[in-house]
């Protein structure tokens, strides 16, 4: 990828993630990963935290053309530290040809990224570890069947935040802002990405290449079984997340934020919510006007505060 990525034609034809994996039909995370690996190339090692994607490499098969190391749930960035340091040591001591070097990439779901893995992630950012970090965020513990995580948005129903008589909204608290948690440590590069915006995604990886240090990416990853949506709607729903303003596409270079895709006219969040079974209790049997309004206000307030020029509504 020598050229800048300006259109879909500039995206690499190289495939490093091959078909035939056991993940669910319409998995937004898998599509994201496919695009990420096109951008990263074959000389890559993925250090994985426990998540749905741990089931990509099941003995004796792997769908990757690159290397893979599964660690555990909380510590993939620490595994990345070990691999990166070892490669550096071997190259410095002349025991490994520099042409054998690898890009070190952490791959994690939101459960590890937002919750259990924060200590090791913060440590790796703090030590300025030269690595990529990809979180595919499906907003719940997906591999165990969709339970509440630190990434679950307000109002979402999950296996452990059901909607009922006592608590009718589902998840009662807001999603953590992982982007801002990371940004507080001023890593050289961090970005949000979407499987529905491959050009934006590829250009962000291209831009990140120039930085030595942590390069962090969070993708909002539609999850058909968890979100209660048609697997064929993954792309349209991912687009809707961006067009309603609920998933802002942005990047931060040493902490300075730029929004990379700003919808000309924001759609109401209701359109996004109504598409998904996990929010259906907000509309049936009775419409929860207050809750829907609150979600819309959160989105409006984000855009009002973070980018006044982008507040077109």
């Amino acid at each position, binding site marked *: 990828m020598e050229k800048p990525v300006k259109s879909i034609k500039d995206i690499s034809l190289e495939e490093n993630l091959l078909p035939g994996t056991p993940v669910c039909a319409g998995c937004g995370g898998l599509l994201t990963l496919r695009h990420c690996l096109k951008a990263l190339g*074959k*000389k890559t*090692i993925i*250090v994985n935290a426990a998540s749905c994607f*741990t*089931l990509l*490499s*099941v*003995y004796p098969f*792997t769908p*990757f*053309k*690159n*290397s*893979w*190391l*599964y*660690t*555990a749930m*909380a*510590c993939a*960035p*620490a*595994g*990345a*530290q*070990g*691999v990166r*340091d*070892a*490669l*550096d*040591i*071997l190259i410095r*001591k002349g*025991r*490994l040809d520099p*042409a*054998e*070097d*690898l890009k070190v990439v952490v791959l994690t779901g939101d459960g590890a990224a937002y919750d259990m893995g924060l*200590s*090791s992630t*913060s*440590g790796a950012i*703090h*030590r300025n570890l030269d690595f990529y970090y990809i979180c595919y965020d499906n907003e719940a513990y997906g591999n165990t069947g969709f339970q509440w995580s630190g990434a679950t948005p307000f109002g979402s129903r999950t296996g452990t935040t059901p909607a009922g008589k006592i608590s009718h909204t589902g998840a009662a608290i807001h999603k953590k802002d992982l982007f801002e948690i990371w940004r507080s440590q001023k890593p050289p590069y961090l970005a949000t990405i979407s499987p529905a915006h491959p050009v934006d995604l590829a250009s962000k990886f291209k831009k990140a290449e120039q930085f030595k240090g942590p390069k962090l990416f969070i993708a909002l990853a539609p999850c058909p079984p968890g979100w209660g949506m048609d697997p064929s709607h993954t792309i349209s729903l991912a687009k809707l997340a961006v067009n309603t303003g609920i998933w802002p596409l942005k990047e931060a270079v040493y902490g300075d934020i730029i929004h990379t895709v700003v919808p000309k006219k924001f759609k109401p969040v209701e359109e996004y919510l109504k598409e998904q079974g996990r929010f259906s209790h907000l509309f049936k049997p009775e419409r929860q006007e207050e809750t829907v309004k609150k979600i819309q206000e959160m989105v409006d307030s984000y855009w009002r505060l973070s980018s006044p020029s982008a507040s077109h509504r």
Partner: protein
Amino acid sequence: MPAVNKDSIPGSVQDAYCLFIERGDRVRKEMLTGNAAAAWGVRLAEADYVPSYPITPQTEIIETLARWICDGSMDAKFVTMDSEHSMITAAGAASATGVRVFTATSSQGILYGFEMFYTVAGWRVPLVMVNVSRGLSSPITLEPDHNDILSTRDSGFLQIHCETCQEVLDSILIAYRLAEDERVLLPVIVNMDGFYLSFTREPVEVPDLKDVKTFLPPYRPKHAFFKASQPMAQGVAALGGPLYSYFKYQMHLAGLKALEVYHEISHEFRKTFGRKHGVCEGYMLDDAEYVLVMTNSFSTLGKAAVKRAREKGIKAGLLRLRLLRPFPGVDIATVMKSRKAVAVIDQNISVGKGGILHSEIASCLYNDETNPYMLSFIGGLGGKNISPVEFDFIFDSMIKTAETGKVPPEKLLYTESEWKEVERLKRIAGKG
């Protein structure tokens, strides 16, 4: 040896070593703490990478290594991680990428990183770790017992337990040989007692690097490692019992094989350095009828007790276990054959069962008809001293058992004055 920075902190191991080289003579022994001896073992093994995390009483090891790496006398990379969990992960991942790795921890550090002991052992990586034993919370404490190290018993890490500072240094060199042997490929922990060994200076012979290199060649592994031309998947899921059993049992077979490999290495170590470190050590065992079984630094107290008992005409002896994984069951059974009684002093406690080593040793004697009577004692928890009176009591109990054939139930070693002191403190706390 590389030059040593003379601007180092007074009283440090470096100063001791400066004295040694400045004298320029052939005096080879220096007064080193267990922690400093461990650091010397790692330096001589020319470890490439030291991911670390401080914890009392281990910290002196990583501080010493950090200083050597910083002043250029050791060519390695040092990194402080965010936890022991991360530390063991980084150690395993680096080892899987092909460098020689050392790390150290103690007590709560083992428990915090516990998940990763099993995980990296399953990666079959030959890293070496030192554990400086310390009792486990709660109540939180500082002095040693072995519940920390014994918690890793089933993980796939092999274990060598040390009585002296010299043994700590030597065992690290042996540990790398054992771990890196292609028939084994399992990580190894070298254990020493916190305070009693970690902070106690003993005369230690620091071997020449040249000799170490003969015994432990530079790490140039032949099996697969991560590199661009050789993509591979490591640590992958194995779904289904038959496949999982296959990998797990393969580790076990490697662990068992390690016993045979250890004997070879130990023999070679003796040839190179003149010191013998077997799977276990016998003390006055030849004609012994009453045998104490102990591990680690408290064995020194046990040996003194054996000597005193011999003076009184009791045919006493001691068996100190060095290798706990792999477990040298056959060696132990052979030693125990036809003794009148054996007392296992467990410096650990499996709550609701008793001493861990007592059970382990019993399991390898059960099918032998010439079994001795086996008594169980719990002693030295949280570093509690084992006094001569307590050893006398143990020998009395063994003799009585041999005479009557009645084996007493497990006992906690505890003196009357210790009990009185606890009563006094309870009164202060208003619970008297």
